[in-house]
Structure formats: C-alpha cells, structure tokens
C-alpha cells in the first residue's frame, strides 16, 4: 500500500510537471510569442528547477523520511503553482515592457511563475526512492521502477494536455484541476502514511 501510494505520487508529479510546462507555453505566448526563445527559456527553467529539486529531495530524504512528508512535497508543488493563475495576465504584460529582449523577458517570467512549483516536484522522485528502497542490493531496481513511473507520468501529462485537455478546457481550469488532484493525492499520502506508522 505504501509503495503504491509512493508510486502514484511519483506518477502524478511527473504528469504535473509536464502539464504545467505545456500550459506554461500558453501562459507566456500572449506576452512573449511562441518563438524558439520562449520554449528555450521555459525548458531551461524547468530543467534547472528539477535538477535542484532532485538535489534537495535527496538531502531531505535523510531526515526522518515518511509518506506524509512526501505528500507535503506534492502539496507544496501544487500550492506554489496557484499564483500562476492570478499573475499570468498583468504581470507578464508588465515584464514584457520592462525587459524588451524576448529571451530574458521570457526567462524571467518563466522563473517567477514556474521555478518554485517545479523545484518541489523535483524533490518528489529521490524522496520516493528513499521510501521504496528496502536493501542496498535492490536499490537500483527500486530507482529504476521509480524513474519508469515518473517519466511515464510525464509522457501521459504531455500527451493528455496537448492533445485533449486544451481542446476541452480553458487553461486556468486545467491548472486548477491538476492542483486539485495533487492536493487529494497529498492528503491520501498523509492519511495512509499517518495510519500505518
């Protein structure tokens, strides 16, 4: 049960990251367009945030790791994504005029909007590895399973968001929906983890 929850969180975290990244290009386009610079800025910020998140997640997993704390990471990613909703309009227009270069304008915008939630999302994976690993001998296997699940989640988040969700819903609604799923999953992790302790 604990492992299932752990893997579900990793799957969803992967889904969430790519969903937000694709929506990110939509949020940035009205102000910065869809030139290759904008995609470059967006991907840079996500990769940087994930890399630092991995580092931090690994560190934090050494300190009394638990399922509720994993849920906390997921909730943190979701809640720090909330400001995207009110900020994406006026703030982006303002940034666009402050920073005329489309490269650094979109880089700054992507950092302000997406860095923190993606950082917390990055913390999830190594933290999960810590919860899954039973013994040194099977650690590679556990890590492999986790990479599989979370990257598979990313693939699912990418295709669902870009092929279907944007055709059905407003982008704010998609983001709100994803935040809601994160909160529910985080609460589940906290409850199950709290009970089985």
């Amino acid at each position: 049960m604990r492992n299932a929850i752990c893997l579900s969180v990793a799957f969803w975290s992967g889904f969430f990251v790519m969903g937000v990244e694709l929506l990110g290009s939509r949020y940035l386009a009205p102000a910065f367009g869809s030139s290759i610079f904008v995609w470059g800025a967006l991907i840079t910020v996500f990769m940087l945030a994930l890399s630092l998140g991995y580092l931090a997640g690994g560190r934090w997993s050494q300190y009394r790791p638990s399922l509720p704390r994993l849920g906390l990471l997921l909730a943190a990613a979701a809640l720090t994504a909330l400001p995207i909703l009110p900020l994406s309009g006026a703030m982006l227009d303002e940034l666009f005029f402050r920073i005329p270069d489309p490269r650094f304008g979109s880089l700054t915008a992507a950092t302000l909007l997406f860095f923190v939630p993606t950082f917390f999302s990055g913390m999830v994976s190594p933290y999960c590895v810590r919860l899954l690993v039973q013994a040194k001998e099977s650690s590679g296997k556990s890590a492999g399973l986790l990479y599989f699940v979370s990257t598979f989640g990313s693939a699912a988040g990418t295709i669902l968001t870009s092929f279907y969700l944007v055709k059905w819903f407003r982008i704010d609604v998609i983001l709100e929906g994803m935040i809601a799923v994160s909160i529910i999953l985080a609460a589940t992790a906290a409850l199950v983890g709290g009970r089985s302790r």
Partner: protein
Amino acid sequence: MKNPMRWLPLALLFAACAAPAQQKLVHEERSLYREVLVYEGDGERCMCFTRQCRIGRQSCINLNDPKHFALNYTRMALGGILFTGEKKPQRVLIVGLGGGTIPTALREILPDAQIDVAEIDPAVTRVAKEYFGFRTDPKLEVFEMDGRVYVKRSIREGKKYDAILLDAFDQEYIPEHLLTQEFLEEVKSLLAPGGVLIGNTFSSSKLYDHESTTYAAVYKTFFNLKTANRVIVARPAGLPTEKELRDRALQYELVLRGYGVDIYDVLPLFTTRVDWDTKARVLTDQFSPSNLLNR
C-alpha cells in the same frame, strides 16, 4: 471478356493526377522554425514549408511575369487593403512575410505609404530577398519579431495603422496566440480611426466556425471573402457600402491589372453573409486549440 487495355486510360489519368507538374527544388534551408524550400515548375517559383509543397504554398511568383499575383488569396488581401479603408492607407502593417509579394506590390502601388512587416523567421526574409525579389528600404521595413510581440510593442509606442494584414498562418501550423479574441482586440486598438483589418485564414475544417465567431466577437460584422482561401476584412468604424467599395476599387483598376488582378473578379467576393455555426466557441488566450481544430 478480358481486355487489360481497357483500364489504360484510367491508369493514365491516375498517373497524371498522382504526379503533379514537375517541381524542382532550387533552394532549401533549415531555419529555427522550419524548412524553407523554394520550388520551381510550371513557370512558377514558390516558397513552401513542406516537401513538394505538400501542405500548401506560402508564396508564388510567375517567373515570366514576377509582378503577376500567382496565388488567389493575395488578390483578395490586396483588395481588402486598398478598397476598404476610410482613406488611402498611409501606414500598413503586415504580420507574416512569406515571399513578400504583397508588401512588394503595396510599396509600388502606394509609394508614399510606410509599410511595416513583422516576420519571426529571418530565414524567410532572406529567401524572400534572394528568390522573390523582395527589397527593404526605409519605407518598407521588416521587424524580426513574433507578430503578437510586435503588436503589443507598437500599441505601447502609440503607433497606428490604416491597414493591418494578418498573414501568419499556414495549413500545417497556426501560431495559436495569433488567433484569439484578445489578440484581435489588440490589433483593433492598433488601427487608426477608419482603419481596416484583413485576415488571411482558412476556408475549411472545424476551425472555420470557431474563427468566425472569434472575429465576430471583436468586430461584429465583416466581409468574408471566399475562394479556395478565405480572407476576412473588418473595419471597426463600420463596413463601407457597395458603392464606396466599387468607387475605391475603380481608382486601382488599371494599376491592379498590372498584377493580374481584375477588380471585377474581386469585388463580388465582398459579402457579409453568415455561413458558420454562430454557437461555436470563441477562441481566447485561455482556449485556443486551433491546430487541433484545423483538421
């Protein structure tokens, strides 16, 4: 009664349809966004973004008569720019360069006008200059920028245009942020009083309905010129009457003939008839799956 030869005419017909007029690739380059290809064949030279111009041609010129407009939509777009403004256009903005046939013609037809072009892809500009006789000068400038970014910046700078042509779409890919209610509002605020917006868009697919309601949400009524292509012409100050259109067109009758454009072919296309599903969802920055709808 087996006669293998009876299929021969049919087979020949098929062969003729399957192999389009021989096209020769004369130039190709890979840009940040796409492949820019130049094909020649049938006395025409065309800019395409897909192999064998599989998904449409961006721009074509007649090699024997480079002034002659080879593509149909360019005639409608030119008609929109020249015939429908409240006054003769002094400042024109074109979003999307292609081979530059429209700005080149406008530069000649309106020698006093300032013509600005927003083109995101420097490779397109380069190829237009090298293969399509496109030339820039102080009165015809290209800004290497995303169309929406250019529009936003121009609003901030207080620029105004008498005519704005949106020509940034192709069948394969639509920059979705250039087909939303918010963008059309921005373009509207960039128009000078009595100015006119011309959009070169799509005549088929599900997108037709959505695009129509989106334009209607911003401009209420508009001329809807349709052949194989579709050109939308909107004037926030109210559309000109049939007589006004004809009078204006007559001023350009002779000069346009030099481009192979017969105003009497173009004028009947100016209609405001509503032939779309008026309940189709309006495209916005929040909801803009244009590429998914365009199939």
